[in-house]
């Protein structure tokens, strides 16, 4: 008897696949070598193990990163860099006051750059509350409020006061009795520090600008000497030029070794060594850049040389040209675009390196930065950081444009 597949009435689940399709999928499924599978599993386990080990050893802790009390000050300073400042000088404001009489108005004295000194009321009886207010002075400054007796007589200190973080103060005093301050017209003298003149670049800005200029010149000198030294060496490190004789091969390997060694020691570390040898300052920074540049540029240049087309070189050799002429007319025209691109790229890199070489004493703006941070002067450090970002970004953009034009 024939057996029906599926129910005769009502919806069923998906119709059974035709036998042909199912076997094709099975057919196409890659049969994996069990050893391969095991190897793959093992690699994944090892990778995971390394990841866990890395996490442990580097002590990753996201909580520490979000710690507001540590991050707060420096983040706040980043949005408030110390760019402008004004000179400070002592100013004196004078306001008259009636002792022994009641007044309903206030006395107001104004300073040259917006300072105000207000006494409320303008006159008082002994025992009355008198309010002394001021604004527009230097923040957190100490000052004197003195009272001058009628007729320019005795000059006494009434009270000392201190401005708050906004340069304002607010003092309330009970007017003393008639014996201390007999009735009459007195003059109050307020002597405080106040900002005068128009805003100008702060000392931090001036130092930073100076140091930034030094940093760029540092990068320039380092790159220049790096290029001068590594260009000739790169020819000696190019396999297609040096391959001929045993001596050539030996020189080639020596050059490659030199490049590798000088590349692998990072600029900061070379900087540390140079500071020991020639002392703190930009000279150590330049030397560090040169040493590292020779390795990196040497490698990049020689790779450019090795990537030239051999055809033109062969053709020029066939005309009877000597070695030197072949290099001059066959090799060099082919490598110029690449050399230029590498040099500009490396210049960019050196600008960035020279901003940090000062951290180890190599001169430049890094030196300023580490000082500010060590002194917890985060606003000043913020100034330096912003300057670095802006200048380096600008140079990056400029060299990209130059590279597009030249190459």
């Amino acid at each position, binding site marked *: 008897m024939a057996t029906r597949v599926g129910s005769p009435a009502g919806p069923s689940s998906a119709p059974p696949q035709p036998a042909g399709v199912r076997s094709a999928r099975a057919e196409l499924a890659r049969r994996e070598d069990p050893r391969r599978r095991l190897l793959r599993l093992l690699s994944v386990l090892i990778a995971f193990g390394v990841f866990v080990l890395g996490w442990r050893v580097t002590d990753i802790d996201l909580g520490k990163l979000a710690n507001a009390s540590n991050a707060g000050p420096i983040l706040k300073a980043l949005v408030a860099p110390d760019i402008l400042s004004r000179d400070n000088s002592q100013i004196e404001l004078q306001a008259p006051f009636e002792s022994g009489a009641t007044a309903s108005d206030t006395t107001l004295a104004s300073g040259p750059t917006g300072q105000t000194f207000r006494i409320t009321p303008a006159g008082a009886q002994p025992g009355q509350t008198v309010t002394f207010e001021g604004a527009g002075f230097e923040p957190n400054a100490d000052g004197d409020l003195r009272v001058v007796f009628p007729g320019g007589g005795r000059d006494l200190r009434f009270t000392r006061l201190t401005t708050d973080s906004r340069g304002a103060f607010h003092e309330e005093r009970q007017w003393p009795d008639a014996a201390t301050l007999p009735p009459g017209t007195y003059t109050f003298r307020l002597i405080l520090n106040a900002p005068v003149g128009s805003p100008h670049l702060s000392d931090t800005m001036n130092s930073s600008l100076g140091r930034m200029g030094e940093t760029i010149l540092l990068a320039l000198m380092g790159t220049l000497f790096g290029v001068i030294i590594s260009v000739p060496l790169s020819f000696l490190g190019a396999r297609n030029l040096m391959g001929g004789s045993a001596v050539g091969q030996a020189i080639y390997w020596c050059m490659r070794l030199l490049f590798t060694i000088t590349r692998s020691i990072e600029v900061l570390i070379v900087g540390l060594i140079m500071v020991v040898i020639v002392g703190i300052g930009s000279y150590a920074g330049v030397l560090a850049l040169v040493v590292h540049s020779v390795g990196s540029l040497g490698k990049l240049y020689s790779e450019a040389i090795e990537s030239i*087309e051999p055809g033109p070189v062969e053709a*020029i050799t066939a*005309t*009877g040209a000597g070695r*030197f*002429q072949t290099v001059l*007319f066959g090799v060099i025209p082919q490598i110029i*675009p690449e050399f230029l691109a590498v040099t500009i790229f490396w210049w960019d890199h050196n600008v960035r390196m020279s901003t940090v070489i000062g951290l180890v004493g190599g001169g430049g703006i890094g030196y300023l930065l580490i000082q500010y941070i060590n002194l917890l002067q985060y606003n000043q450090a913020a100034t330096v950081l912003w300057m670095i970002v802006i200048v380096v970004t600008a140079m990056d953009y400029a060299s990209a444009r130059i590279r597009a034009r030249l190459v």
Partner: protein
Amino acid sequence: MLRIEHLVKEYPGGVRALDDVSLTVRDGEFVVLIGLSGSGKSTLLRCINRLLEPTAGRILLDDLDITAARGAALRTVRRSIGMIFQQFNLVKRSSVLTNVLTGRLGYLSPWQSLVGHYAEQDYLRALVNVQRVGLRERVHQRADRLSGGQQQRVAIARALMQEPKLMLADEPVASLDPATSHSVLKYLQQINRDGMTVICSLHFLSLARTYGTRVIALKGGRLMFDGLPSEIDERRFQDIYGEEAVEVEIH
């Protein structure tokens, strides 16, 4: 003018690109070298100007032993042999003029080349040769802006600067379309008729028949045929190119 005696070129591993090849080329001939790829055509040409070092045998150019030349003598020999290549081998970024002038390097000392000091005579020669290949108006253009045929003509002008006795051409038209191939080969033919001995390797037998005064065929590094183009009949063709080969006409 050129005598090749028992030339052998063997690579490490025992592969013989050239196996006991001997032939003589007379002044003024247009010798066409034919054979399958890998039969030794390029190798033979490159051994003549020592771009490749022969393993054994001798090559004599007007009784001067090329194979024994060293240093300055080698340079002197090379400058009397001009060569053009399948890939043209111009310096792409340099102008036509600069490329053509490099043909004169064999006659300059290194110091003169350093300052780019070519003699007035050399500039005159360059002008004449560039005119000869019909590219006078493109003389300051960058080489890579020229078409394939034009680049090969610049290469010819460069070789002519050497005032060579012998012109070698390694598959000079293999990268060019049929019409341009004829155009370039006509220049070579003209130079040959002006007195230059030419040895040129080609893929197409029809081109060999049109331009060659003599055909030499190689197979597996050995000399297979040496005679007139008209002597290659169907049987000879199959000997050279193999049983399955069919001749392709190029018009």
